[in-house]
């Protein structure tokens, strides 16, 4: 369960008579089968995050449609889709545990079940010792693990990750990627992961969708044929390096176009 089908999705921002109106995403079609980890990569402003919002039902597309297991998405689907954002999406006035419990309350989980589900999710990301800490007491990497715990506790079949590790230093980011790969190999979730990091995309993804400069369209989809969980040996392999280079060639001209037209996210 959790197959996502994106058909001809276009997204625009601004009124139709506004000179500043932009088309972020144009006629995008993408099939993400159940249990697959798909990375979206592309220049800033190509509509990757907009696509996540549309899949999650947080935004309506200007044209096209998204279905999950054949059902059209018409609004937020907290029981089926959960989100991991960039930093600061945790509630700073709540502890790690309270953040997870709040998420379960939002999703409508009965009070009696919340504690057990929070415990399980916090243990899965290895934050047992920090459950009573506030986000400001945690490192950047721990904060993202706490966010992941919050999303995992919701037990959705689909996980959307919007540049979750973008604010972290590269070493932390790569190690969290390894942890994520191990964790997700066990859960068989469908995952859509937006990133700007070529290495991260190749390391994590079953397939990588490469977007063009704005208006974003899918330029190509790259297959990464490697079993999960992925480990350090894959990180340092010639195979990963080769795919990374291929990805760089695909993205190079698109990123330059974005730089030269001054488009921003």
């Amino acid at each position, binding site marked *: 369960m959790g197959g996502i089908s994106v058909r001809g999705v276009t997204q625009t921002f601004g009124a139709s008579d506004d000179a500043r109106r932009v088309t972020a995403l144009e006629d995008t079609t993408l099939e993400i089968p159940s249990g697959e980890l798909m990375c979206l990569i592309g220049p800033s402003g190509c509509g990757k995050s907009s696509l996540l*919002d549309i899949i999650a039902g947080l935004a309506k597309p200007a044209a096209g449609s998204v279905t999950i297991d054949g059902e059209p998405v018409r609004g937020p689907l907290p029981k089926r889709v959960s989100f991991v954002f960039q930093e600061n999406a945790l509630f700073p006035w709540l502890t790690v545990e309270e953040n997870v419990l709040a998420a379960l309350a939002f999703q409508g989980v009965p009070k009696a079940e919340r504690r057990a589900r929070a415990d399980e999710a916090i243990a899965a990301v290895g934050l047992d010792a920090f459950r009573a800490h506030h986000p400001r007491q945690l490192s950047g990497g721990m904060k993202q693990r706490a966010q992941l715990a919050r999303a995992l506790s919701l037990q959705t079949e689909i996980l959307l990750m919007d540049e979750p590790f973008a604010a972290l230093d590269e070493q932390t980011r790569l190690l969290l990627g390894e942890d994520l790969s191990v964790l997700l190999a066990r859960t068989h979730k469908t995952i859509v992961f937006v990133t700007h990091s070529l290495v991260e995309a190749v390391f994590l993804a079953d397939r990588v969708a490469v977007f063009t400069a704005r208006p974003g369209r899918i330029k190509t989809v790259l297959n990464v044929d490697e079993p999960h969980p992925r480990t350090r040996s894959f990180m340092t392999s010639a195979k990963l390096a080769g795919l990374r280079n291929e990805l760089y060639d695909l993205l190079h001209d698109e990123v330059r176009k974005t730089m030269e037209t001054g488009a921003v996210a």
Partner: protein
Amino acid sequence: MQVACIVAFFAAWQVGSSTGYLDPLIVPPLSAIAVALTALLGGGALWPDAGVTLFELAIAFALAAGAGLTAGFIISRSALAVRVFDPLLAGLYAIPTILLFPSYLLFFGIGPPSKIALGATMAFFPIVLATIAGFAHVAPLRLRAARSMGASAPQLFWYVLLPEAFPVVLAGLRMGLILGFLAVLGGETLTSNAGLGHQIVTAAESLDPPKMFAYIVVAVVLAVALNGLTSYAEQRARTSAA
């Protein structure tokens, strides 16, 4: 260092006025003020007037807080309303509210209601502006996160909007309380029939500077106490919210 300055200032005051360098009708010796203050506190004459002033402040603050919080929250819910009303209210805030006092006297008479109206007007602006600022600038990412997890409108309010806005709103309430107190006192000194401000003016007009300064001391102590209490509350809220 600050303490030394204050001590030096009061020492100069005492020496100056007791030796006749300073006109005791304008600057009475500290010792005379102390005597007047003791008489005031002991004689029970202080309490009815202090009561009137604090009563006026309490009503004025309650009105300003009720109106300011409600209006601020409603305005904060629409980006358009914020763009329209935020500069408008900030502009009105800059107009000296005291200019309204003559008309308040006309509408409400010289008793407490005119002082309440002035205090409420003065306290309203910092409260409404802080409420708008607090609720309109909640981190969009956290709202998006809560919505994606299925938060209902009441859950959004209690879990996200309120904790996020609370420290800013509280700072506005504190400012409102202090300004309200200043307005009530100011109003009383202009035209009134009771209250600390009224007594300050009456003492001055009856050429009794020690008594006037004694009332001023009481007013200053009250202002400092209000400020201290509300600062403490704000500090508590900030540390528990951060």
